[in-house]
């Protein structure tokens, strides 16, 4: 059951990611990315990371990607006019190289990674565990990220405000 679920959602994630790269229109790409994120959220659940799965949907799909869609709608960004003109080099070697890279990756991952299997439900990193680690061991990084967010807000406001003239 685990493997079937994994394969289904991995397939969805990969299909959406390919769609992201292939599609001409930015809004289609954005929604494909939302699809990838949704599929990854399910895979996080399979890995027993409940809180991260929820955060993935709330933060990534519900906030960051909405921002992207919002900007695309605001700028009314159309399809890419200029087709990417691949060189003869890319035309001939592109697909074989991709296959070679993925093959190499597969080889290294299969042989280099720890040999273990993951059973659903065996271990769960609950929201409580995450919260405890976040506010004890990782308190300083947590506080620093809040400063980072503040800086980001200020930066965004400064960049996007109307010029006073």
């Amino acid at each position, binding site marked *: 059951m685990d493997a079937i679920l994994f394969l289904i959602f991995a397939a969805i994630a990969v299909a959406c990611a390919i769609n992201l790269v292939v599609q001409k229109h930015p809004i289609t790409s954005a929604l494909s990315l939302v699809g990838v994120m949704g599929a990854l959220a399910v895979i996080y659940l399979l890995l027993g990371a409940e809180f991260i799965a929820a955060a993935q949907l*709330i933060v990534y799909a519900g906030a960051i990607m909405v921002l992207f869609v919002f900007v695309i709608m605001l700028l009314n960004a159309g399809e890419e006019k200029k087709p990417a003109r691949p060189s003869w080099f890319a035309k001939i070697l592109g697909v074989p190289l991709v296959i070679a890279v993925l093959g190499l990756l597969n080889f290294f991952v299969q042989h280099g990674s720890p040999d273990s299997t993951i059973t659903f439900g065996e271990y769960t990193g609950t929201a409580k565990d995450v919260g405890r680690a976040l506010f004890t061991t990782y308190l300083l990084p947590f506080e620093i990220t809040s400063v980072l967010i503040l800086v980001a807000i200020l930066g965004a406001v400064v960049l996007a405000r109307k010029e006073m003239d």
Partner: protein
Amino acid sequence: MNFFIISLIKAGIVAAVLMTTLAYLQWVERKVIAHIQLRIGPYRVGPHGLLQPLADVVKLLTKEDLVPSHVNKFFYLAAPIISVALALTSISVIPFGPEIEVFGVRTYLQLTDLNIGVLVLLAISGVSVYGVALAGWSSNNKYALLGALRASAQMISYELPLALAVASPLLLFNTLSLREIVDAQAGYSFGFIARWAIFQGPLPQIISFIIFLIAAFAETNRIPFDLPEAENELVAGFHTEYSSMKFAAFFMAEYANMVTICALATTLFLGGWHPPFPVEFGSNYIPSALFALCGAVALYHALHPARPKDRFTLPVFAVVFFAIALAIAVPALNPILAPLFWFAAKTGFLLFLFIWVRGTLPRFRYDQLMRFTWAFLFPVSIVHLFATALAVALFTR
């Protein structure tokens, strides 16, 4: 296998009840608004217009299903499906009642209980922006696009105070599972004050309840925050180009969102299915008494000479009310129906509040709407969250 069968039965019942509620919520809304405006509302189809929802469904089903030629077809068709599917999904984590035993099978009156139930609801409400945004964008219509832009900006902005308002009662309960949240609100302090979140120490959550309600109005795009579909500026907002069943899907999604958010407010702040005062004081008899009273009122009005048509319809209602009163009073059914009654009563009251506000308040201006959330609601909810955290740290455990 047993689990699957029970789940299927429960899902079927919940779906049937939810659909009926959605249809009749619309009837109730029209009636209440009509009475606020000194009209009588739907009165033609069936007694007191009770068959109006059915007529509406038939009308919407038989209308021409139009797809304008200038739309982005895929997203145009996907948007209503996304909206309605997400809106209906979120009801599955709401607990309606305690564990019950029917024909020897023990089960909870809840479709499924998740460890992260509250987060799942927040996630679904966050993702449901896409339905609205896509509808507006794919319609290829300036009014729809403006409506969608407004809707997404508004929903992102109001999600912050909503999430912060949800966070403060969670500090009291120390859990994210909705079933445990309801359990944490059981019992009575001093023997008679219900330990609901809005009454529970160390800091009663009344302020965050109010913030939650205000943000909920904005999240469901209801008056006074219905800017995305402000008809005098934007025709019909994001669903201008939609007709027939696709329009009905958006309509259904809006009402389903209302029901879910009211049910969530009930669960988080109003003690879920727990009665407002202890069983020893007779809270189990209240539902029966209320329904019997309704029956009596219906009978009284049936005898009134000025309403000749109601001589036949109202006694039927009276009989129905008396039957419900009797059913709740039966000792075997009471432990199932009484919690359901309290849950439905609280949720129903909040829904009535939504309609009441719609009948009372005017619409905000767009800049007022944004300033209200960023400059007022958001700081207040943060301060309230801090206050709650401080109170919990000082006075509990």
